[in-house]
């Protein structure tokens, strides 16, 4: 199981002793400049032409963030929220693995990660601590979209670059350098609607399995999906709540099948393995759109010939690596869009290849959409799970 293979503790040189000698946060840049001399020539290659493809603007704005270049290497902090599911663990592992890449490693003096749980005030305090400690950039997967207004003011005063990803912030227009990295959730829902319309034989009755109620991701994916279905007027949609959870989804779909008999197609926002198992148990294999779990892709590959024509696209845990890449790019003085929308990693029953976009030997909970080739983030599954030989 993935969760039992934590990435070994990185033996970073302890920067604390040198840091303590510093008197003020304001001095840190100067100290860094005279600091490590390991600026390999390979650094320039780390930010190459692929950036324009990776940092695609979105979210209705093309504004960019640009600050005067700071001298590498940088001190980067990550104020994570909770850590209690497979996605978050893989997200952290990906971040650490990406920071160890030969092209990235010389740029980073220190990568400090703290997970504070679900408490908003603790996450605000963690950010405050990172600001006081003079970090150059702070990454954040925010517990609340609105609660960071005051701490963003303090980040602006201190000149700290903030990159939020996955659960991003509501922009107020008053913050300092803030880059937000995410995938377009509405687009993801729309893709799945289009997929079902192009794959279903009959277009009469569709089952939609929604996520956690009240969450903006659930709302956006739902809106995109319904928008795509407008192309088939008169199609009937049954909605159940699956909470993005395998157990809940499996039960909800089993119930829906018991009541409705069968559907022409299914869209689930998450918990795709459970939802698919419910279809398999009922012998009602139909076209399906779902998230990016490895187990789901395994089931599609095994059952496509029997009618489980599946499409899989999901929130990639590698967003953390893109966020780090964006932070480094801003610190190096590059212009990066304020709102980065990375391409959605997608695979369907025709494009699934074992070992490339799904992994028969890895656990079901691994998120198969584990890299962003367009961003130069091409970590192998072994790099991420810490099973690599080196």
């Amino acid at each position: 199981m993935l969760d039992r293979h934590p990435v070994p503790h990185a033996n970073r040189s302890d920067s604390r002793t040198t840091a303590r000698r510093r008197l003020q946060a304001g001095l840190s840049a100067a100290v860094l400049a005279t600091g490590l001399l390991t600026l390999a020539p390979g650094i320039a290659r780390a930010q190459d032409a692929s950036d324009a493809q990776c940092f695609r603007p979105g979210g209705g704005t093309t504004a960019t963030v640009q600050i005067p270049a700071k001298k590498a290497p940088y001190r980067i902090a990550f104020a994570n929220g909770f850590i209690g599911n497979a996605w978050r663990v893989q997200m952290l592992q990906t971040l650490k693995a990406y920071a160890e890449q030969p092209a990235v490693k010389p740029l980073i003096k220190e990568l400090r990660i703290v997970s504070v749980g679900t408490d908003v005030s603790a996450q605000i305090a963690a950010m405050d601590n990172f600001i006081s400690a003079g970090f150059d950039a702070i990454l954040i997967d925010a517990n609340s979209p609105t609660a960071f207004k005051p701490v963003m003011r303090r980040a602006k005063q201190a000149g700290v670059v903030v990159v939020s990803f996955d659960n991003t912030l509501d922009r107020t227009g008053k913050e300092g350098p803030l880059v937000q990295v995410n995938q377009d959730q509405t687009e993801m829902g729309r893709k799945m609607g289009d997929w079902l319309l192009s794959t279903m034989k009959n277009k009469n009755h569709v089952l939609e399995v929604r996520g956690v109620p009240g969450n903006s991701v659930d709302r956006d994916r739902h809106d995109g999906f319904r928008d795509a279905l407008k192309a088939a007027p008169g199609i009937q949609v049954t909605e159940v709540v699956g909470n993005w959870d395998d157990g809940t989804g499996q039960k909800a779909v089993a119930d829906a099948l018991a009541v409705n008999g069968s559907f022409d197609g299914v869209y689930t926002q998450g918990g795709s393995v459970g939802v698919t198992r419910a279809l398999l148990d009922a012998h009602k294999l139909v076209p399906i759109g779902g998230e990016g779990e490895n187990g789901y892709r395994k089931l599609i590959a095994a059952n496509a010939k029997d009618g489980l024509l599946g499409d899989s696209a999901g929130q990639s845990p590698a967003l953390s690596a893109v966020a780090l890449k964006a932070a480094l790019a801003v610190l190096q003085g590059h212009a990066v869009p304020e709102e980065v929308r990375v391409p959605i990693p997608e695979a369907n029953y025709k494009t699934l290849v074992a070992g490339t976009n799904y992994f028969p030997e890895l656990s079901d909970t691994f998120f198969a959409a584990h890299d962003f080739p367009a961003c130069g983030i091409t970590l192998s599954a072994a790099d991420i799970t810490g099973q690599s030989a080196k």
Partner: protein
Amino acid sequence: MSAHPASGIGLAVRHKLLPILAFVIFALMFGLYLLLQPHGIQTSVLVTASNKGALLALVAMAQTLPVLTGGIDLSVGAIVVLANCLASNLVNGTPAQIGLGVLAVLGTGVLAGAVNAMAVVVGRLQPIVATLATSTMFYGVSLLLRPSPGGEVDDDFASALTGDVWGVPVSLLLLIAVLGLLWWPFSRSVTGRGLFAVGSSDASAFMSGVPVGRARASAYLGAGLLAGMAGLLLTLIAESAQASAVQAGDFTLNSIAAVVIGGTSLFGGSGGLVGSVFGAFILRTIGDLLFVSAASPLWQPLFQGLILLGAVSLGALPLLRVRNRLELFR
């Protein structure tokens, strides 16, 4: 511990052993944190620690009052979120409007406490079940007040109360004021002493003429007021609100942990608010220690759990000197 029972200081130390122990643990942990801080003792570091510590301390104090009577309040977290959502709508505008807003928020806290008191004292429901039900109710109201995260809060007011005066965090001063102006007089009143009496043995308290109902009701009312203050402080820290059931549950669980670490018995009758304050600060310092320790992220929850277990175990040390072994089963 071995002081002669007749000596006044020895007696006081014995009575306050657990809060003192909690204070020592906190002082050691926080000292270690400041020592490992890359930039030493800065005002900003103290303000950050004080803000998040005072927030949890208020919730822990709210939880302590019902626990002293042998009850529990599972709705403190929900009252914090309720006050947070209300404050995000009201604490804005002219100074007079802000003042009224603050009063309305605290009043709502007391009102929520009154609902609990009604259920427990008049309705004679088990506190654990009654407050579980009311917590869902309070969360429902929060959701109505703030369907989606956000809110406008006066910047200057928020910055002033979450900042510092001459290097001393304002939130810490507020906490001391609450202890000195509310808890200290109350704990010396007849009703205040009734809390402990009811918690030790409600039957004997009743037979001795202690106002049992009033003492119990005051515990839940006080819990509501303190949780309302916590909600207000959260609003000032975040300058917004979110009707989050997860956050409410988080506060409730952490408040119970802080109460136990601070030396208040979950069976009631012994303990106090001061210990809970240190308990809350200990809990928060665990997070700070992770910050300076550079522990690998996947190991952090384990470290957190181990430190927590250590702190709770130290709180149980006095059990070892129990004279009557039957007390162990209480």
